[in-house]
């Protein structure tokens, strides 16, 4: 492929690619993000390839492996064009039937379709499935069609048009003005206006200037950046190059977590192709603008996602934050002006350039424009990546798109903003989700993790989990964060171990306040959020642990006991056989009894007890009934009780 030297070259190439493609030709796209890899997308791809060869259809039928479609719960997902038939949970065994029936016979295989659990209705097209129906997929749309290793797929969808427009029709100042008037706020956490950040870097003295993509995504429970980088890396590269042009940078860095191997390799391929086609390197698209990109792999440290820490890591140093009174936009990598945004932020930029700031500001709320991708996970029915306009309510996201809580359980809270965010309880489910509303609720947007919890989640244990996580990840440079987290961890460990004292809650709040005021970086100042927000909304659970020695969610090992209800036991021996401590006495036709002195509370008996019996229960806050006398243990009910 000769490199493109003008806007017209790009247009001509796109026309050529599109003309080559026959839209009526049967085409199979197969979702191949990491989650689908994990559920066997590779094996499905091989099976499709083999079956096409076997049935001599390799010429007539195309296969494209795309990025993540978002509905990871039901992957691998295939879509068959032109009819756009969507099959979920596809296995290699399904493939011969799909090729013979659907591709050749134009017949739909009912069992592979989505079935609405409430109405029983089957849905043929992806956009009819409630999980997708209520979404507005702008940033994520390319993932459905693009093979991330093929730049022509991206160009066919209009890729790099935004860059061509910026370079050939606009001055850097005009690009900057466009992004500023779009009021694009950073999607990585803080929600700082990207245009203003760009402007600061542009105006800061010092050369060269750098632009950086943060794909460190350390927030547990969030994976939208990974899916964009894996599934549509050119969109990020295009956004980054536009930013570089607006800022006046000639060097970019992309910092990707080592834990995302597929993102690293797809990105490397994309970089090579972008260079070959003339979207990177010298004289981009014949405009005279020059820009290069280097990839840095992150070595696993949550704090390295903090902008100044990340810049230290790029320099090859320990990823510790720098004092915040020096802005990285003025003095960042190698003390040069450096602009850092996250993956999703850059991925939005080409859309703004192409469709204009007015279009972008028509979506979203007053203070938060555009769409946001959330990773909707936890104990919700439909988990996956969800893109909705800013301002969509939590209830719509969790119930309409997410399909509500699993196993008919009760909703307890939703964690937004990662470990530094907060947990929002049921009474705020109708709040619109945007940067400012979430902050008002004591949480934050963060990078868009949304972890749903049901009644079986112990809030105190969860707060302890977050504090424990942050404690491990605190770099230790400043005292309030390092010591504050340790003390909080001690107190929370005591509370879940049944050793909580009166005054513990007040002490947690006091430590949290100091950390908020005195820590060096955003990790430290927000590290107290999980404890503070849970105390704010779930104080009664803390009190139950401390004063009643009771865990309302029946989770904290030290506060619960396992007990077999004699009248429900069917003497099936399952629990007794599986107990690792031999703590369950029981024989055939004899009611089983747990020896409390031997029980380690592993919960295996609870898990294996047949649901029709449901004899093993958890007790908290009250004494375990004494074991029934041996003489009364014989079951006289004959086989198959009830």
């Amino acid at each position: 492929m000769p490199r493109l030297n003008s806007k017209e070259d790009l247009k001509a190439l796109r026309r050529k690619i599109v003309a080559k493609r026959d839209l009526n030709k049967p085409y199979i796209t197969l979702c191949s993000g990491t989650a689908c890899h994990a559920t066997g997308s590779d094996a499905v791809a091989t099976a499709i390839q083999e079956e096409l060869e076997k049935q001599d259809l390799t010429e007539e039928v195309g296969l494209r492996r795309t990025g993540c479609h978002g509905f990871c719960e039901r992957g691998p997902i295939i879509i068959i064009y032109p009819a756009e038939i969507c099959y979920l949970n596809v296995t290699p065994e399904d493939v011969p039937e799909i090729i013979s029936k659907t591709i050749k016979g134009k017949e739909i295989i009912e069992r592979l379709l989505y079935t609405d659990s409430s109405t029983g209705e089957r849905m043929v097209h992806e956009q009819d499935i409630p999980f997708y129906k209520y979404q507005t997929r702008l940033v994520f749309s390319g993932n459905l069609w693009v093979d991330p290793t093929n730049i022509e797929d991206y160009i066919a969808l209009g890729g790099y048009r935004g860059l061509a427009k910026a370079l050939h029709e606009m001055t850097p100042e005009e690009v900057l003005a466009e992004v500023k008037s779009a009021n694009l706020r950073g999607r990585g956490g803080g929600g700082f206006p990207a245009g203003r950040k760009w402007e600061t870097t542009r105006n800061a003295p010092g050369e060269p200037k750098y632009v950086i993509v943060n794909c460190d995504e350390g927030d547990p429970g969030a994976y939208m950046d990974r899916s964009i980088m894996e599934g549509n890396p050119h969109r990020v590269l295009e956004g980054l190059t536009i930013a570089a042009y607006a800022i006046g940078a000639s060097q970019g860095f992309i910092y990707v977590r080592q834990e995302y191997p597929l993102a690293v390799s797809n990105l490397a391929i994309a970089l090579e192709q972008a260079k070959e086609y003339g979207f990177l390197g010298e004289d981009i698209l014949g405009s005279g603008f020059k820009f290069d990109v280097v990839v840095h792999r992150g070595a696993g440290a949550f704090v390295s996602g903090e902008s100044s820490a990340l810049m230290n890591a790029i320099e090859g140093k320990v990823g510790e934050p720098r004092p915040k009174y020096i802005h990285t936009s003025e003095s960042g990598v190698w003390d040069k002006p450096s602009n850092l945004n996250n993956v999703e932020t850059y991925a939005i930029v080409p859309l703004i350039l192409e469709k204009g700031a007015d279009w972008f500001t028509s979506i979203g709320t007053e203070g938060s424009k555009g769409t946001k991708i959330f990773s909707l996970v936890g104990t919700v029915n439909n988990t996956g990546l969800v893109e909705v306009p800013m301002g969509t309510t939590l209830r719509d996201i969790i119930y309409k798109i997410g399909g509500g809580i699993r196993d008919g359980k009760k909703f307890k809270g939703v964690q937004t903003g990662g470990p530094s965010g907060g947990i929002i309880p049921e009474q705020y489910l109708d709040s619109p989700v945007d940067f400012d509303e979430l902050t008002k609720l004591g949480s934050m947007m963060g990078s868009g993790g949304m972890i749903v919890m049901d009644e079986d989640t112990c809030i105190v244990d969860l707060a302890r989990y977050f504090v424990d996580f942050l404690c491990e990840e605190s770099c230790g440079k400043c005292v309030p964060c390092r010591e504050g987290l340790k003390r909080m961890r001690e107190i929370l460990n005591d509370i879940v171990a049944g050793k909580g004292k009166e005054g513990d809650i007040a002490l947690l709040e006091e430590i949290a306040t100091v950390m908020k005021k005195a820590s060096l970086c955003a990790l430290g100042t927000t590290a107290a959020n999980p404890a503070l927000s849970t105390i704010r909304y779930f104080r009664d659970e803390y009190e139950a642990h401390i004063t009643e020695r009771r865990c309302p969610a029946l989770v904290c090992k030290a506060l619960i006991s396992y007990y077999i209800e004699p009248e429900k036991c069917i003497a099936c021996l399952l629990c007794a056989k599986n107990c690792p401590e031999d703590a369950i006495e029981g024989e055939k036709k004899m009611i089983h009894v747990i020896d409390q002195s031997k029980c380690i509370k592993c919960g295996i008996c609870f898990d294996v007890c047949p649901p029709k019996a449901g004899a093993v229960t958890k007790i908290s806050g009250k004494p375990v009934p004494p074991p029934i006398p041996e003489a009364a243990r014989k079951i006289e009910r004959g086989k198959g009780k009830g």
Partner: protein
Amino acid sequence: MAEIDMRKVDEIIGRYKGEEGVLIQLLLDLQSEFNWISPEAIARISEQMRIPKSQIYRIATFYKAMSLKPVGRHIIQVCLGTACQVRGAPKILDRVEENLKIKEGATTSDMRFTLKRVNCLGCCAMGPVIVVDGTYHGKITPSMVEDILEQYE
């Protein structure tokens, strides 16, 4: 004990020689090649790259992806990210620990397994997740643990 081929170490150092700010990338390459970073390798980097050993140790102990201890033939990562956590990952970790009779971070005495606890592998929709030698096992229940481990000798 995993043998470290010093020629391979030299080759990796060669990729970065003379460049600035490359220590993390170099150590990551060593880590993916050998699954750990040996004292000999650190001495060699120090000598060749003119970087004090103390600085190399500072980096290697700061970042989670780097290991200064040899690891087993198979590496098990149990995800304890928030999404997996609320779907029962702690019980999975308990079961793996019980099964292998080691705690997270340790290696079995026969060098068969090294057990690591990780904070989010980014496939939250399939949680709880464990990864063995790069192969993902999703929607795990405690009773599945033994069968999975048995696949690895």
